[in-house]
Structures are given as structure tokens and as C-alpha cells.
């Protein structure tokens, strides 16, 4: 009977979406965390801001003490440290500083500043490491919506063939099928482009 098949298809589609519920919550939670912590003005200062992270990778590393702003004069400094994204490190020391009485204290303060930044970098990297999981969850959600649209579309068509008053359902199902599959197609194409696959 067409309506039985329609009910079965719809139930399968909803069931698939329900199975993704946990993943949906996880995805939204992770996204919220990512947006809050990696924003340019984060509430949480234990991770780097997006601008800091981008600058670290794009400019070949992070310099301590921080470089002066564009146009500002460069001040003398007893230590200069460059930490690069591949882990390499260059430390430059003023020779007079090595003999200074407060050398130990100043070096300790400088080292703490570097260590604090490195800890923030580590926490940011850990946050980024969850990206594939978030992306995969997003893709499965899109697929689930596509599946649901697909079932509704076919279910609607089947119902429409049996009952003329079910025509709106056919329209809604068809639209859902088109949207779900269209969205899936766009995402797939973007991913393939990003990976350089043609």
C-alpha cells in the first residue's frame, strides 16, 4: 500500500535524523566554542585570537617582544626570540645583558611571557584538532537532510499517485529533495575543490 511505504520511508528518514541528534548537539557546541574562543575579542584569553593565529602562520613565526605596529619606532630590547610554526627557534641576546645584575630576573620574566604564549598556542591547536570531526558531522547532517528530503520526495510522489489531495505533500517533499541534494552537491563540490580534485 502506498501510504504504508510512505510511512516507512518517512520513518526511516526521521530515524536517520534522530540518530544524528547527538552529533548535531556536538557540532553546534563545538562551533560555538570555536567561534567564542577564536574570535578577535575572546572572553577566554587562554587561546589565541584568530588574528594572532593567522599572523603566526602567515608571517613565518612569532617574535618576542611583539613587533612594533606599522610606522612605530623599534625600541631597544635585551632579548629577541623568534618562534616559527615548524618549531625552529632563534634567540638573540644583547651581550651587555649577560653581565647585567638583573639578568636572571629579566630573563625569567621574558621566558614566562614566551611560555604563556606557547601554552595559548597549544590550547588553540587542540581546539583546531577537532576540526575534521566537526566537518564530518556537518557533512553527515547535510546528507541526513538530503536523505530526509529524498524520502519525503519519493513518499510524496507515491502518495500523490494514490491520493490527489496529497499534492502539497508531493510539492514539499520534492522541494526538500531538491534542497537536500542541492546542498549536498554544493558542499561536495567545495570540498573537492579544496582538496584539488576535479
Amino acid at each position, binding site marked *: 500500500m502506498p501510504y504504508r511505504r510512505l510511512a516507512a520511508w518517512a520513518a526511516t528518514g526521521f530515524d536517520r535524523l534522530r*540518530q544524528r541528534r547527538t552529533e548535531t548537539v556536538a557540532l553546534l557546541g563545538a562551533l560555538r566554542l570555536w567561534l567564542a574562543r577564536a574570535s578577535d575579542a575572546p572572553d577566554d584569553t587562554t587561546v589565541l585570537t584568530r588574528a594572532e593565529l593567522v599572523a603566526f602562520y602567515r*608571517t613565518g613565526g612569532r617574535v618576542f617582544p611583539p613587533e612594533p605596529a606599522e610606522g612605530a619606532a623599534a625600541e631597544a630590547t*635585551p632579548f629577541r626570540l623568534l*618562534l616559527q610554526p615548524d618549531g625552529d627557534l632563534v634567540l638573540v641576546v644583547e651581550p651587555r645583558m649577560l653581565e647585567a645584575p638583573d639578568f636572571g630576573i629579566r630573563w625569567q620574566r621574558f*621566558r614566562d611571557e614566551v611560555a604563556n604564549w606557547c601554552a595559548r598556542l597549544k590550547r588553540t*591547536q587542540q581546539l583546531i584538532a577537532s576540526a575534521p570531526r566537526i566537518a564530518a558531522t556537518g557533512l553527515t547532517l547535510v546528507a541526513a537532510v538530503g536523505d530526509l528530503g529524498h524520502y519525503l520526495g519519493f513518499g510524496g510522489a507515491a502518495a500523490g499517485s494514490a491520493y490527489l489531495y496529497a499534492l502539497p505533500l508531493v510539492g514539499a517533499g520534492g522541494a526538500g529533495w531538491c534542497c537536500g541534494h542541492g546542498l549536498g552537491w554544493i558542499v561536495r563540490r567545495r570540498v573537492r575543490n579544496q582538496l584539488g580534485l576535479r
Partner: protein
Amino acid sequence: MTDIALKEQILRLASDLTTLEINLIVKDDMTARKMPSARLALYEIAQGYQDLLHELAPERCPTTSDLLEDDAARDALAQRLIERAPDHALAETLAGERNPEVPHPSFIEAFALIQLEAETLLASAGDDEFRIRLRRIAGNAWQLVSMLGVIATVAARRPRLYTTPCHYQAILAHEGPAGGSTGTALELLPDEMVLVRKAWEIGTAGIAMQTVVQLDGDIVTYVARAHATSTAILSIHRDATEVALRTWKDLFQTIGILLGQVASVFRQVKEGK
């Protein structure tokens, strides 16, 4: 045009990641100066290298201005390169016609010549410290030639960062210390920027202490004789090594987590979700 394979670039990247290098330099009158644009940074690197080569062998190595700004002197050097290394990737380019729209020779030519001169001087250098500096100059110049070669090849074939195909000389032509504008920006990818940044930061300064850690666990530490007994130097170098090792470990942990995540996603897909 140099034809440096992308493979070389990838090998360099892999080698960068599998080796950790910590350098300690003792330098007077230091400032928290910002690194200039990539084009000007390359000019300053070439200038520093060439000035040191000239200082070591004034009779055979020209000054920076001769190398980068005087076409006749540069042509004479190019001729020497062609004679001594006819198989060099740049020999054909240097022997060919110059692009009249580009007034100066490109960085790629300058660094190729610097590399060759440094290698020649290395063969006869007696002092250990100068040998180390010359080896670094030759190595960095070779890496920069490889990097610029890839940029030139890609820019001519199909633009990666450039909206239209460009002649490599227009992209890689230096603009002198003033760093004017040729109209074509020199855009570097992050891994290329890492190389330029490090070369610019170290320059030609003598390294007081250096530690190289390899992925297989080998650790090699070099200490300049003049600093071998300084407890302050040893102490801050140890701290710097700790910072670098921790960052390196974190980087590999992140890569490990990423790979684990990808593998788990694939496993889930294979098992039918």
C-alpha cells in the same frame, strides 16, 4: 627559467618538520624591529650575504651594489657561473637575452651567484667560525633559489597567487634598499615565509650556540669557543631548547590528533556509520 621540481619544495618542508633547530645569537644594539616586506627582506638578506663575502674576499667578490645594481658586473659574474657550472639550472637563463622592461637582475640570479661564491670560498676557508657562516650562507642561498624557482615556474605557467601569468623577472626583480614598487607584489606562501623570516632574522651573525634535534632522537649541540664557559649563555640556551621542544611536541601531538580524527571518520564511514 629554472625548472625546479615541486618535489624539492615538498622534501624541504618535510625535512623542516623532522628537524628542530635552536639558534642562539649574541648581538649588539638590538631592537624589536619589524621584518619588512618580503621583497625588502630578500634584498637585506642578499645585501648581508654579499657584504660578508666581499669582506672575506674583496678581490674576488663584488659588493652588493655591484651584484644587484650594476648590469656589467652582474654579467661578468654570470659569465663565471656559466663557465664554472654549465649544468647549473640558471646557466641558460643567464646566457639568454634580458627582459628590457625589468631594469635589475632578479633575486634568483643574485642568490644563485651568492651560493656559488660562498661554496668557492668555503673550499679555501681556514677559520672554523667563518666556515660555519659560509656553509649557512651557501645553504640558505640554495634554499632561496629553490623557493624562488618554484614561484617563478608557477607564476609563469599558471598563477597560484597572481591573477595573471607574469614574467618571473617582474615578480622577483629586486627594488633596491628603498623598496619601491614594480607593480607586481611578491606574495609568499606560509612555508616560504618561514624560510625568508629565519634567514632575515639570523642574517650573517655568528651563532653562539646551536642545537639540532632530529626526529629519530639525535641531538647535536654546537657551542662557539668564545661562549663555551658562559653559564648565562648555557642557561638561556637550555631554556630556549625546552620551549622549542615543547612547541615541537605539541605540533606533532596536534598532527596526531588530526590524523586520528580523520581515521576515525573514515572508519565510521566504512562501517556504515
